[in-house]
């Protein structure tokens, strides 16, 4: 008990708190910026993948290749690839930026599949109704497909983002100062690994668990709102 309190006092010592907050902030920033930008790129990839015509064929192939390849490489390997690729051509690139690029690539590959599923969930007849009224492809996407696919896309996309809070721990390996990195630092300073990583796990849990609950709530709410009239809550 005494040992525990001693470790606790050291872990949360005033001079350490600033760094701890900084590392938590970094974990959150990595997740939200990386996955957020990834989501926007994923929309582009999903649209390209659905685009018609021979002219778009090379882009379609590139989009499919991108998605299928990066969903089959470990995130850690993607991170190292980005690190070494950027390091090879740019001197002194920031580690934060490298981590964000890696997260973006990974998130884009996964989220574009989720978005594709959402787009495909919109019945073909909705598109036909738009087509015969002379909607262009973009107008159909904007007015009909996106609004109708959001309730399908949002729950798994949010779940992906929340799960990524945990996956960001891997970028500690290239030296980004986030929560896991801070944990290793404290152990290197002679603190107990048992205590530090136990505590770090608890902090991750506190970040992840409430958001997981929020995600589940969102899923239920969107599911029920859909049966009563879709997207009323979203307009």
């Amino acid at each position, binding site marked *: 008990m005494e040992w525990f309190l001693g470790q606790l006092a050291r872990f949360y010592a005033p001079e350490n708190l600033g760094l701890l907050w900084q590392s938590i902030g970094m974990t959150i920033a990595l997740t939200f910026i990386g996955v957020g930008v990834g989501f926007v790129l994923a929309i582009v990839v999903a649209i390209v993948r659905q685009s018609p015509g021979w002219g778009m064929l090379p882009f379609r192939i590139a989009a499919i290749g991108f998605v299928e390849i990066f969903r089959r490489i470990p995130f850690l390997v993607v991170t190292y690839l980005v690190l070494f690729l950027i390091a090879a051509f740019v001197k002194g690139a920031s580690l934060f930026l490298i981590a964000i690029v890696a997260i973006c690539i990974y998130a884009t590959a996964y989220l574009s599949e989720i978005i594709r599923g959402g787009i495909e969930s919109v019945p073909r*007849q909705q598109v*036909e*109704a738009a087509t*015969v009224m*002379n909607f262009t492809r973009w107008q159909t996407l904007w007015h*009909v497909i996106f609004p*109708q696919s959001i309730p399908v896309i949002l729950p798994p996309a949010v779940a992906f983002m929340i799960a990524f809070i945990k996956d960001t721990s891997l970028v500690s390996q290239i030296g980004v100062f986030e929560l896991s990195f801070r944990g290793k630092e404290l152990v290197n300073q002679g603190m107990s690994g048992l205590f530090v990583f136990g505590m770090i796990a608890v902090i991750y849990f506190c970040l992840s668990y409430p958001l997981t609950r929020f995600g589940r709530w969102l899923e239920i709410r969107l599911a029920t709102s859909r049966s009563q009239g879709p997207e009323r809550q979203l307009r």
Partner: protein
Amino acid sequence: MQHLEVRDLSASYGSLAVLAGVDFSLARGEIVCLVGPSGSGKSTVLRALVGLTPPTGGSVAIDGKAIDYRSKASVRAARDRMAIVFQQYNLFQNMDVLRNVTIAPVEIKGRPRGEVEADARRILGNVGLADKLHAYPDQLSGGQQQRVAIARALCLKPEILLLDEVTSALDPELVNEVLDSIRALAMEGMTMLIVSHEMAFVKEIASRVILMDHGVVVEEGPARELVDAPRTERAREFFGKILRH
């Protein structure tokens, strides 16, 4: 000159030929019904006309001007003049009634919103839905949804209205409210091509009836004559079956 002229129209889904040379025409203001057993290709005729199932042969002309189905611009121009109403209504699920009816005229044709909304309110009033402007499709009955779909087509100010089995998906007690809306349109002199199974309605409203089977026109003639005294064996068989039901 005929308002709509269809010559030797053919179409296929993949390798399956669904239309094998269909000929017919509509005069301005004429109401023609397409009847026939399921799979005879009558719905495909309508889909082909608006380019949803692009024709593989033959010609379609509006006011003598042929539609080139390989040209986007030509198809768009044709869709400006023809509106189609689907069996399953196909209302946009994410929009309320008023938005469903006004979106195409406002966003696609660029007409002033105020003017379009006034039109929409009047048309929705005519089909008896003045109090449902802000309801969403899944809050409406099938009959109400189908009337919204008709209003949506009318708000596009089409010259020719194509109706694809608009009452087939409805409960029997809701059929009449939709037919009433179509009767009202007939009075206004709209050119209409109607695919329908309601033989009583067909006899009442159509000036001519076209019987299709296996992707071709079997027989064609004035409504009463064709339905009550068909000349061909195939037509006798078809109408005999239908009337027995």
